[in-house]
């Protein structure tokens, strides 16, 4: 079984990334490449579904920090949804809820990008 995988689904202007498995120092590069591709395609409305993410390390979280400025400079955002409590605890400890928005469901998170969707 793969240690970590990302599934990308584009819904209009919003890109949904579903993470699965372990996002740590080993797998961070894979995920960074996915985000780099999105930046190249100028897709800045990003929802990250973490329902199947079992673990995230600081290195994994560092990837988000590495892109958030570029995304927001382009009027986009990275929003998180369906984060399991164990993973959320790590986000919370490091102060991520002050920086990123967390939503209970995909629909809610995607709905936050309503304006962008209307434009497209």
């Amino acid at each position: 079984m793969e240690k970590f995988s990302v599934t990308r689904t584009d819904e209009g202007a919003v890109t949904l990334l579903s993470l699965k498995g372990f996002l740590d120092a080993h797998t961070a590069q894979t995920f960074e490449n996915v985000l780099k591709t999105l930046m190249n395609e100028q897709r800045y409305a990003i929802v990250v579904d973490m329902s199947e993410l079992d673990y995230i390390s600081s290195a994994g979280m560092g990837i988000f920090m590495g892109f958030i400025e570029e995304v927001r400079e382009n009027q986009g955002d990275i929003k998180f949804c369906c984060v399991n409590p164990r993973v959320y605890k790590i986000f919370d400890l490091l102060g991520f809820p002050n920086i990123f928005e967390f939503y209970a469901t995909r629909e809610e998170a995607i709905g936050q990008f309503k304006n962008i969707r209307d434009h497209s």
Partner: protein
Amino acid sequence: MPSYYDYLLEKFGGDNDPDEINRRLLELSSLFEISRTLNASLELSHILNNVLLIPMGRLLISRGLILLIRDSLCRVELAKGIREPVEHRTFPAVPLPEEAFEISALSETQASASELIPFLRRLQLQVGIPFISRNRVLGYVFYGNKLSRQPFSEAELNFLTSLANIGATAIQNALQLEEIRQVNRELDEKIQQLKTIFDIGEGLLSTLDEQEILKILCYSLAGQMTITRYAVVLNHPRQGYQLAIHKGYAREALRRLEPAFAELFHLNEATHCPNISHPQARQALEDAGVAVIIPMHSQGKCLGVVLLGPKVNGQPFRAVDLEFLTTLVNQAAISLENARLFRETLEKQRIEEELNVARTIQMQLLPKQFPHVPGYAIHGLNLPSKQVGGDYFDIIQIAPHRIALAIGDVTGKSVPAALLMANLQSALRIMIGEDIPLPRIVARLNRLIYQNTEADKFITFFIGILNTRNHAFTYVNAGHNYPLWCRRGRLRAPLTTGGIILGIMEEAVYEADTIYLEPGDVLLAYTDGITEATNPQGEETGEAFLETLLEKHHQLPLPELFERIIQEIHAFSAGAAQQDDITLLGLKRLDN
């Protein structure tokens, strides 16, 4: 069954006012309610809300405020009915009565001791009641006027005191819980930090690539500290500073920091920018937006520094953060050092293998046996240096009475030099058998080398053909060290005729000269490894060194003469490493 009302009626007697008893009952039920509510909760805000609101509702009080004492500061935790935003205001703690008191009755000395009492008076608060638990004052609750404007009766104050006492226990429990939660959170943070260190350790072990190590480090730092700006500057002993990785900082801004780097490499641990002692360095860092500087140490060496921008979550870098950063960065530094050592070992192995190949090629090019020529002695010697320098000599018997002797030195070292030498040899061996004049052979070799090599590759080359019938020696010298000619212990004019070094000019023209050898004559060709051998002071042997030796020892058989020369060179170098190949090629006409 008698009711509680009957019980009170009996206890307090018939002369008591039933209203009074009713009021008492109401109070008791309030206390019961509050006790039940408070004990059901461990949330401080919930408890404080109830302690304040229940009596305000029961006694129709329009305003109230709660202060809690923490770290000898009084902090407004909750206010009701007060329009001014007062919550979270703090005052230095001041001793107040340890039982219910009227604020107006406080003495002027008490009032002037702190801003607190004027503050309470301004908010029109009337009475204060301490929260006392286990003989410690946790804080106070203050109430304003009743709507009726009637002063608080003693019974009412008793009621408020009872309530505060129940509240105090609940507050105490809640505060303890809060403290435990805080400790728990700190523990969780520590665990998270350890996990990160463990995680990065694992990640770092799996790679020996410098960029990848730095990436893993920076990802972890960015995630753990919530930073979007970072840079790693490496301190290379030879190349100087290298901006290895950076994000969020403009390259220009970092370049302006360069004068500050030397200062930063002296840091011992993660340091806040304002604590950098050097004023210019500090200013430059502040201008660039650097919050923390972390040196990368491995085995007492500073490999570089990591620069971090401020945390995005708005929190400061705490002492525990700096400790963590120091540990994490040093761990990455060890990995970097390991990676470097590994690369160096690989590189050494690669060079070693290449040199072995070069040595093998060279050895196979050199003649292993010297032809037996009546009336002459011919001898060659090659001592390759560690680097394998590209020297070459050859002895080719063209006909029973004609023998070619060649010597050359290819620029460069190792395998490329050896291959060029091999080319030269094969071309020479093909052409020398043809009936082509020597200058034309050399011109062709020159064109071949010129056309097949880079501009910076060339060969100094000397070739001569001995005719044993008439003892003529016809030679062309293409820029090679002049071979020496010795007759009866005296040097004659060296063999200089020829032309330019091979491989520089495509259309170079060469000429030949012929000398005639007498019995006892010695020709000695050599490469610059002989005349440019150095001693520990860096001085070179020079041409005169060899000339003197030849004059002195010309009578020795060639192998012994060569041995002598090598011994003298070793004596001269006094242990300094041999920099270049040493090659000698000798021809001697034997005495009749």
